[in-house]
């Protein structure tokens, strides 16, 4: 199953694209996070990295389902 992850701000610069596609499936947000940290160690150097699932901030324990909209949320700086 192809999973597309939306990237913004610093994560877009680190991964080098505005969408990251993985041909793999992860059971939880935490597993996806582990994978990303392994592939892109610079992500761990961010002040924080939240993962949004269906436009809500998600805990690492949240289980992923097919069709979820997933986005990486580096430290926000609006306002």
């Amino acid at each position, binding site marked *: 199953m192809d999973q597309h992850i939306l990237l913004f701000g610093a994560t877009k610069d680190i991964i080098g694209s505005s969408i990251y596609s993985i041909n793999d499936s992860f059971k939880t947000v935490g597993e996806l996070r582990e994978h990303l940290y392994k592939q892109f160690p610079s992500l761990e*150097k961010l002040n924080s990295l939240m993962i949004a699932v269906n436009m809500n901030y998600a805990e690492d324990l949240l289980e992923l389902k097919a069709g979820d909209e997933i986005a990486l949320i*580096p430290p926000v700086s*609006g306002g």
Partner: protein
Amino acid sequence: MIKIEENINVEQVIQSVSKSQYGGTTVFIGTVRVHTKGQRVLKLHFECYEPMALREMEKIERQAKEKFDIQEMSIHHVVGEKLPGEKVVVIAVAAFHRKAAFEACEYAIDTLKETVPIWKKEFFENGSVWVAAHP
């Protein structure tokens, strides 16, 4: 009214909370600063995860109305390129009692800066940086 747009018209944001007459309106206007930590800012670029940003801004409005005795709240934020002095965010709150209007307005801008997925890149003469991304 919750909105993400290129340019904010302050008068319009104030109007949007003043349809009925409540006595007190508070407004916060955030603008691009000329200097950050001693460095001259040439321009800013705002990027936004728009559908989620709108949801988070609506959540701020909803929670502010639960927490404080206010009647109306509008939050407008810009996207795209901005120069020093240009408006970034405008929040307006209408209430019968001004204390609640002040508290709700401050709550809204404080929370927006923590939760709304919008990112600001600062451009200096010698480079650019995503604000707050790294230690």
